């Protein structure tokens, strides 16, 4: 079984790191994984996105047109990925700044107020992890606890002091996910 997760947002919203975290977790869990960034000048200011693939078999393509899940942290990302997620797949939306609702009805949509939760936790920079926490509830391949364990050792040195907050972000996202999903 192979799961493809796209994470997409403004540069600076931490999409790339969130994707890497999933890949690191997959590695720790003994799974196959790839992380594929979009890179280049668009990273500066524009949109940043990446694809993480997690699988129990060797991975061919590190990109796919139709991912199983997408975490969209801003409106342009929603515009881009809503049409692409596989039917039945997961779409996590940062509802704090994305007002528009999802049109498709064949997806599991999680609208999570990522920025608000992050502000609450005291750091705008953990929106990505809030959303990932939510995602994990719908993505059976990686377990929240494993992600947390992995985070502990891959968190960049300069953010180590924020580890607790980062872990909370994951948890809050996960906690929010269930009722939200029901509300879709």
């Amino acid at each position, binding site marked *: 079984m192979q799961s493809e997760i796209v994470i997409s947002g403004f540069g600076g919203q931490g999409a790339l790191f969130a994707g890497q975290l999933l890949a690191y977790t997959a590695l720790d869990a003994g799974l196959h994984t*790839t992380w594929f960034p979009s890179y*280049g000048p668009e990273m500066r200011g524009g949109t940043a996105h990446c694809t993480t693939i997690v699988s129990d078999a060797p991975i*061919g*393509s*590190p*990109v*796919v047109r139709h991912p199983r899940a997408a975490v969209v942290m801003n409106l342009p990302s929603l515009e881009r990925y809503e049409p692409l997620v596989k039917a039945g797949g997961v779409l996590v939306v940062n509802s704090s700044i994305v007002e528009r609702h999802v049109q498709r009805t064949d997806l599991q949509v999680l609208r999570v107020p990522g920025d608000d939760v992050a502000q609450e936790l005291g750091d705008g920079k953990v929106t990505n992890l809030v959303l990932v926490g939510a995602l994990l509830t719908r993505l059976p391949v990686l377990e929240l606890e494993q992600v947390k364990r992995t985070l502990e050792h891959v968190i960049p040195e300069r953010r180590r002091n924020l580890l607790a907050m980062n872990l909370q972000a994951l948890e809050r996202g996960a906690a929010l996910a269930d009722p939200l999903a029901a509300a879709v």
Partner: protein
Amino acid sequence: MARALLKGNVAFAEAAVRAGCEAYFGYPITPQTEALEHMAKRMPELGRAFVQAESEVAAINMVYGAATAGVRVMTSSSSPGVSLMMEGLSYIAGTRVPAVLVDVMRGGPGLGNIAPAQSDYAQMVRGGPHGDMKMIVLAPATVQELIDLTVEAFDLAERYRCITVVLADGSLGQMMEPAELPPMRTPRAADERPAWALTGARGREPHALTSIYLDPEQEEAYNLELQATYRAIEAAEVRYVEERLEGARIAVVAFGTAGRLSLTAIDAARAEGIEVGLFRPVSLYPFPEERLRQLAERVDALLVVEMNAGQMIDDVRRVTRERVPIRFYGRTGGVVPMPEEVLEAIRGLHAELVREEAVA
């Protein structure tokens, strides 16, 4: 070494370090700059040579210099930067000193863009530098292969006193994947340099390393030596990977990233009942001619997939003598084809075969 999640550019740079690379000369260019940056940190740390050259022209000639001194030396660059190295590469080949180049291709021609592409196949495999020369060209498809082939590149370069190119594309340089780095080899001691190297003529006749032979007969003799080396390389160094080819009616032929992309499409097609497999040349020079020719005897059609306008396909045509229909799917300019597109191409080719059978 345990497996770690590694970015391609960092992975090959560290692999080179561990393979005993004693000198790195390079110039920044996206999408391979992280390799230079890694070397900027690692090489001085280990007391080895690192110079950020003033240009790719200078970089390849520093490589040339260090190669004449008999050390393991490398550079890395991307398309426009590699174009600037053509003269230097020709001299290195014309002098028969070993060197390693990692070329992380990007979209072209011209300045193009920094997205992944395979449009320098023809340049590296068929005829970039002037003169009758060849470089061993290895095309990895995964970060692990990128590591392994980089290590091997040093060994091959030394074995044949030739240039070995690791030909990757931007996606391989930028992506992360679990991979295992090789153990650290101790670099050769200064007094273990090869006999042909310039080490100061202590207690021996001085020698010169040069690529000029004014007398055509002499130059020809030199060329015949080179050609003999190339024949030896062709005989011994062919590398390829075959997947799902057992009983396949269609073979996808694709190298590097295009190859791994195609594999996903192949699995999807197989799930639909289409008997298709993958032939992935790993050594682009020497090209796996014999094996591909045999394959063309067994299958009903070939689909060549490249991230360019169709370059390797000419070699596929030549080698297989077009015994079976050969179709092409390619994206250019840095567009990475999605496996879904390749799947579509496989389906199309399959339908073609079915139609023909119906007619027959």
